């Protein structure tokens, strides 16, 4: 009863859990247009993930793994299902997640035979893979309720069924390291711990070997996604959309959200998107305000592009942006190779390249 009254009061006053606020992009997250100005290496139909062994860049595009030499893409192998995660292993092998439900490991990217196949029945939305302790992989399973392509459904249902899994490649044994996460989307080893993106809670958590969790980077203004190591220590964190007060508001309006999910085409939901501005049917895109007799466009952003450079402790150092008026949105993966950062903007399907010395010079770092 008291909880119900408290909930009502909070909703009425806009306080506590009903506070609809988002942090600003400032400090290390100060906006720029570096990602928007980045060189477009190539465009793909359904790019999903990037991986590198330190020499070559691999890209998962639909059901194929491509090897990239400059702008030239060579097909390495093809599967019968779409790839939802990709990672290179320290021993020269490569691991892929297929349709979020199966993980396959190959001794080399072009090896004809599969080394190991792990298809645990609990796998549902494997969306990131990373090398773990020798002989193991760590994976994030975004949601046990919704398949990977339905991540927006999971957000709108306020899903909290994300998991971090340890996969023993040889035996195929799967161990749950963490569960009950608000959409786990990205994992990377940090010493003997793991860093994990928890998208719907807008944070990065650290998971110690004993399974204890701590918040490393909290209250981000974006939905974080995959992580990868940076060459000079630290990490690259991608974010596929920015938080807005509008979406935060919708997330607190249960009846409205249920009705929206039942009646509206998911393409036009008030929800984060990987790209936006494609249709006048999209909510709020045509909004404007009139100031001093001048009509000024105004709309909360629905898609955004961001890559954040983190130091070894997980604190942000700087960020590369493609802002609301840009197109390089929906960044889901970034890897560093030969002094350049390669980022995958899933919204427009672009592989982008930014020379890091130039970017850091522009940011005066």
């Amino acid at each position: 009863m008291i909880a119900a009254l408290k909930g009502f009061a909070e909703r009425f006053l806009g306080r506590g859990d009903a506070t609809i606020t988002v942090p600003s992009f400032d400090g290390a997250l100060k906006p720029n247009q570096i990602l928007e100005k980045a060189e477009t290496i190539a465009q793909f139909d359904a790019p999903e993930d990037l991986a590198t062994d330190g020499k070559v860049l691999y890209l998962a595009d639909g059901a194929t793994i491509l090897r990239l030499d400059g702008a030239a893409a060579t097909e390495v192998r093809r599967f019968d299902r779409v790839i939802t995660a990709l990672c290179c292993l320290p021993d020269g092998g490569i691991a892929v997640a297929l349709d979020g439900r199966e993980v396959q490991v190959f001794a080399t990217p072009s090896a004809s035979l599969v080394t190991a196949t792990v298809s645990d029945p609990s796998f549902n939305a494997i969306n990131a893979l990373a090398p773990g302790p020798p002989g193991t992989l760590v994976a994030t399973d975004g949601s046990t309720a919704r398949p990977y392509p339905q991540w927006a459904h999971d957000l709108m249902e306020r899903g909290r069924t994300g998991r971090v899994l340890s996969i023993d490649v040889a035996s195929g044994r799967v161990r749950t390291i963490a569960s009950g996460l608000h959409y786990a989307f990205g994992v990377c080893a940090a010493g003997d711990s793991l860093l994990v993106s928890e998208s719907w809670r807008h944070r990065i958590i650290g998971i110690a070997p004993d399974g204890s969790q701590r918040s490393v980077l909290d209250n981000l203004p974006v939905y974080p996604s995959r992580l990868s190591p940076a060459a000079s220590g630290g990490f690259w964190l991608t974010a596929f959309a920015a938080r807005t007060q509008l979406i935060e508001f919708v997330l607190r309006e249960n009846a409205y959200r249920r009705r929206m999910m039942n009646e509206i085409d998911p393409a036009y939901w008030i929800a984060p998107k990987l790209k936006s501005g494609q249709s006048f049917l999209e909510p709020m895109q045509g909004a404007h305000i009139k100031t001093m007799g001048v009509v000024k466009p105004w709309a909360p952003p629905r898609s955004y592009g961001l890559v954040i450079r983190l130091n070894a402790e997980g604190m942000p150092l700087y960020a590369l942006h493609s802002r609301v008026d840009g197109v390089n949105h929906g960044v889901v993966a970034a890897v560093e190779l030969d002094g350049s950062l390669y980022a995958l903007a899933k919204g427009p399907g672009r592989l982008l390249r930014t020379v890091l010395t130039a970017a850091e010079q522009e940011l005066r770092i």
Partner: protein
Amino acid sequence: MSDIILALRNATKLYAGVPAIENVDFELRRGEIHALVGENGAGKSTLTKVMAGVVSLTSGTMQVNGADVAPRTPLEARYLGIAMVFQENSLVPTMTVAQNLFLGQERFYNRLRGIYIAAQQFLQSLNFDVTPTATVELLGAAKKQMVEIARAVLHEAKVIIFDEPTATLTPEEKKYFFDLVRDLKRRGVSIVFISHALEEALILADRITILRDGKHVVTDDAAKFDRARIVQAMVGRDLSNTLYGTRKTTVRAAGARVLTVQNLKMAPMVRNNSLSVFAGQITGVFGLVGAGRTETFKVVAGVLKRDFFHGGEVILHDQPVRYRVPAPAVRAGIAYVTEDRKVEGFFETMSVARNIYLGLLAKLPGGRFFLSGREADKVGKTWVEKLRVRTTGNAMKVVELSGGNQQKVVIAKSLVQEPDLIIFDEPTRGVDVGAIVEIHELIQRLADEGKAVVVISSYLPEIMALSDRILVSRQGKVVEEFSALEATEEKIMYAAVH
């Protein structure tokens, strides 16, 4: 008849020996709209107050229609045909519009109905849509301003001075106000208006005068100005021989995020304001009057309350906080060093030591039942030495200190609380040059020690000299962030007025 209706020659006004305006020449033509533009403290308000008889010149002359005058009161200025409309309007809120219009012109026998009829006719003649029987406190900002303008016209003012007339108006009301001003111009009234919004000056004014640090910089036709030229004239100081002469070549890296303000609202001053403050850095906050800087940080420190409904969030060390009074904020490690030390900073008749000791007591939950004079002396002595406060002893009263040393006492009162987040609001206002250097060194030292430091200042060179990152505030929210390495005075001012 001369084209010049009002002129000031070599106008100088000193406050306690410090010039607010110095040798300023100003001419207002008949029937022109003249904009006065400048930073905070540039001398705009002082200049207009001289014209309106609110303050008198220390030296120099003022002429109306070619004759030397020296109005000593607003009433004398009104007899000369000069009226001023203040930013905080001067109407009596509990009286009706008509009563306010005729205030000061009452006759021995006032027939209320007669006043209302006269007011109605007069307001109609001006095409002002205001009901004369309405109580002023129930009117919106724009209508209050209309009443002020009507009163000025009723008094047959030939010169009307507006101080930030559009600051509290909505866009629609602004448009209406501009029409009113143009209409007044057609009636032959000369207008002087102060504005921080450069667009307004460029759109509305016939001529623009720019002041900087109390001195006249330039007067020219508005058509010959553009935004860049105005900003350049507003900030174009030569600092090479001052303590602000050197530019920063390095900035401190940000530490952990100490404070996050998210969508904070405190009507009408703070509007959806969001910002972060990091440990080990000095975050400078710049903005012009009405930018909501002080109010934002007063909400953080529990001095002011945010809006009751949907007032936004203040997050300290990743925990949402809401302080209704300053005491819990102090205990949580927030220190706010006020901009108005005489009113909010100290008890002037108490000793230096006791004032500093009060800061310590404020941090203790529930205060302390027994107070120790010995402890007060010890704490006072420690901090007097640390901050090099120049006193004749611990027992010296704060009122007997110089401005700079008073400010050091206020700072010591906060630092004794060992805060993590220290907010300096105009830390060197009214402080001598020697003390400015010492206070700046202290602020730098605090950041070097890993504290999160916020410096709110209206003086651009100070912001640039101190800050590692600079937040620019305008109309109640932070609109731009600069690293100290990329910031220039022009960029900051452009963001503050755009």
